[in-house]
């Protein structure tokens, strides 16, 4: 027979509402990265629920794999796409908002109502018996005997995922990478000699987070081409004029 101790109930009543609120938060925050963080929080909550429900192994995996790996992947991608980019939350498809709200209320309401009316006709058992040799051992037994076929088959899924990522992301070189020598020759052959020495580095005379601030040229004017093209494209370049020196102090201070 399953009895639930008070600590768990307390935990549930604290974390449960929090997770739901966090989930709702996911829908209403503008920045994707905030959504991601809220999701990470929900996942941790759920991990705690797992652990509370005698699914220790899953709880840990949830934190390690999900929160640790999957969410990090999400964050990576968010970074790539633009971490500061924020969504407009105004609905552009007419009627969809209404449908969404109705569906949400309907779905959620019906779901809750149905769960409340559901009866299994047997008492909740609890995992004490199943976990008596240890949760991990129990899982392992199932995993490597009864569900070994699925377990093996899932390797195909993993290969597919890797292969897919390769297909979509791998840039096959269409032209041989120019050697340094070739690059040097090219620099001199084409363009002005001004660029022959290579592009200026960002962050020279850094008074700010270096990467997104254009370098200042010796005459004090900013050099926009010192910023990575990606940042430019993303609009993450700071206005460089604010770093322009109004007047270059040419006086050389004597070292004392």
């Amino acid at each position, binding site marked *: 027979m*399953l009895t*639930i101790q008070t600590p768990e*109930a307390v935990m549930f009543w604290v974390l449960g509402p929090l*997770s*739901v609120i966090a*989930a*709702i938060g*996911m*829908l209403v925050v503008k920045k994707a990265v905030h*959504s991601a963080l809220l*999701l990470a929080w929900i996942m941790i909550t759920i991990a705690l*629920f797992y652990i509370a*429900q*005698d*699914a220790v*192994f*899953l709880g840990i*995996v*949830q934190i390690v*794999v999900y929160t640790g790996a*999957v969410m990090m*992947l*999400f964050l990576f*991608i968010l970074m790539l*796409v633009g971490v500061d*980019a924020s*969504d*407009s*939350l105004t609905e*552009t*498809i007419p009627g969809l*908002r209404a449908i*969404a709200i109705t*569906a*949400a209320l309907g*779905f*959620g309401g019906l*779901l*809750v109502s149905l*769960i409340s009316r559901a009866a299994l006709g047997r008492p*909740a058992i*609890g995992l004490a*018996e*199943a976990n008596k040799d240890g*949760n991990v051992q*129990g*899982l392992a037994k*199932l*995993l490597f005997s009864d*569900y070994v076929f699925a*377990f093996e088959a*899932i390797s195909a*899924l*993993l290969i*597919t995922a*890797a292969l*897919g*990522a390769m297909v*979509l*992301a791998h840039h096959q070189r269409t032209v041989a990478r120019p050697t340094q020598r070739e690059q040097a020759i090219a620099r001199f052959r084409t363009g002005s000699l001004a660029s022959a020495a290579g592009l200026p580095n960002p962050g020279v005379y850094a008074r700010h987070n270096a990467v997104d601030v254009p370098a200042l040229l010796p005459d004090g004017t900013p050099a926009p081409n010192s910023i990575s093209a990606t940042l430019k494209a993303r609009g993450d370049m700071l206005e460089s004029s604010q770093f322009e020196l109004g007047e270059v102090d040419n006086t050389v201070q004597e070292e004392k």
Partner: protein
Amino acid sequence: MNPYNYLYVAGLLFTIGAIGVIVRRNAIVVFMCIELMLNAANLTLVTFSRINGTLEGQVTAFFTMVVAACEVVVGLAIIIAIYRSRRSASIDDASLLKR
């Protein structure tokens, strides 16, 4: 407390995830909402595992995590590919195919 309470939470999370898919435009957020739904399903599984006193639910949840991880890889790869073509991660922009 009744273990069913976890089911309510899971149901609500699932609902919210589903709504998120509909209301959010950023493909990555949409995808995260789907992850939320999967998590809600997992929570349901684990809860039922406890109610039923068998570990199959947990095993299923475990498989789900692996599958979800693979899905994330593929999904994000696709999203990135789209993003590079369009310089946009909004799924509303990807609406050439219609009618």
